[in-house]
């Protein structure tokens, strides 16, 4: 019911506030409400009822002449022709693909982190460095294969951000419902992920206190494993969440003006040079962090790099604003 009201409000949002328009809106609302109530009484689900009502609503164009709003509708109509329409089935496929891709990316990252475990465990248990290396590189290899595969499968959706797209209200509402349903899971995955990353430092500390056989190596091994699971959750959850946002932005703009052209990728920095450099900033930081950490093996202190990097980024942002 709420959805139908929103739908009607959005349809009428750009129109002048005349008596005729207000009356039309009221009458249409009455009919929609009646239809919705009846569909619900027939035992239809909320989604089915809302879907039918919106599908059978029609087009405000038909009322343009009667309401004297032709000029408003025409403008919209022209722009509506441009761009690609995202159907409900497209949205469903997109979400399904992106969900799979999110888990695959998460899995890839998980493998990358776990690859270190292979090296550690085989090294201390079997005293066989080669087997460890083998495990490490095959895990990384599989991860890269997963990244490439998911990148290729998702490239068919590139048009969503690159082309002008629009999406009708019913589809937007569908995506919104899906996002709403995902909210709890998202929060849960994110907080468990962060929690795991934080408590991951416990095993090395605990094990170093105990003086049992290979405890010094087991600590980091468990730490990496916990981090891997945590990162898997964070990466998957945020990627899924991102897929909803991508669609909803398209839909929101489309309904505000009846059509929507995706703006050129918003630049985060005003200065083009800074923007170019900053686009690879975090990759560079990650690289520096891993290089220094592996070379020195001072993992207990190298995390400072992240804090420094964040401060430096804030400074650059500030500089950019002043330029």
């Amino acid at each position, binding site marked *: 019911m709420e959805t139908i009201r929103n739908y009607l409000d959005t349809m009428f949002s750009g129109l002048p506030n005349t008596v005729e328009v207000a009356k*039309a809106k009221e*009458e249409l609302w*009455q009919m929609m409400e*009646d*239809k919705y109530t*009846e569909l619900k009484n027939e035992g239809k689900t909320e989604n089915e009822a809302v879907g039918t009502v919106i599908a059978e609503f029609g087009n405000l164009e038909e009322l343009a002449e*009667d309401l004297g709003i032709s000029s408003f509708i025409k403008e919209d109509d022209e722009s509506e022709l441009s761009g690609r329409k995202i159907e409900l089935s497209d949205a469903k496929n997109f979400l399904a693909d992106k969900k799979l891709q999110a888990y695959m990316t998460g899995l890839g990252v998980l493998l990358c982190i776990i690859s270190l475990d292979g090296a550690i465990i085989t090294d201390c248990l079997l005293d066989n460095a080669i087997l460890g290396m083998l495990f490490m590189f095959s895990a990384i290899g599989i991860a890269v294969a997963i990244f490439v595969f998911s990148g290729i499968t998702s490239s068919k959706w590139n048009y969503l951000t690159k082309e002008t797209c629009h999406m009708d209200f019913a589809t937007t509402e569908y995506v919104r419902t899906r996002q709403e349903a995902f909210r709890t899971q998202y929060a849960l995955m994110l907080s468990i992920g962060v929690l795991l990353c934080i408590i991951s430092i416990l095993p090395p500390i605990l094990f170093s206190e105990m003086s049992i056989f290979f405890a010094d190596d087991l600590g980091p091994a468990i730490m990496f494993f916990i981090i891997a699971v945590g990162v898997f959750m964070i990466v998957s959850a945020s990627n899924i969440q991102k897929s909803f946002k991508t669609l909803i932005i398209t839909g929101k703009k489309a309904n505000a003006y009846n059509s929507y052209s995706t703006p050129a990728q918003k630049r985060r920095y005003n200065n083009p040079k800074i923007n170019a450099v900053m686009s690879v900033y975090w990759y560079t930081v990650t690289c520096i962090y891993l290089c220094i950490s592996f070379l020195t093996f001072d993992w207990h202190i190298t995390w400072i790099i992240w804090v420094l990097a964040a401060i430096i980024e804030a400074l650059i942002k500030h500089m950019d604003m002043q330029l």
Partner: protein
Amino acid sequence: MTNISSDVIRGYNDTIILYLLLNKPSYGYEISKQIKTLSEEKYIIKETTLYSAFTRMEKNGYIESFYDHDITGGKRRTYYRITDAGRQYYQAKCDEWALTKDVIEKFIQKTEQNGGINYGNN
């Protein structure tokens, strides 16, 4: 399945609505529901189409609107009632349709019940 073309039916939405108002006043959703039932779900009128027809016919004096409460519940609705001018207009549209149907029929190729096309030479 063939779908009804909105271009074709547009000229007869008024006729359909007036027919449903002949015996008693009615309101938006009831009319749209009756159209769906009587047409055996072959024609589902859009809300905007229906409302557009109401305003147009009211302007032309074929129908009048008034507020009333629902018989069952206490809901206040806009009801529509047919006027005398509306009845005349309806009759005129019926005659027009009879003629249209006669003419168009002459140009429709008949298909036999068994599925074969009758070329008229058997």
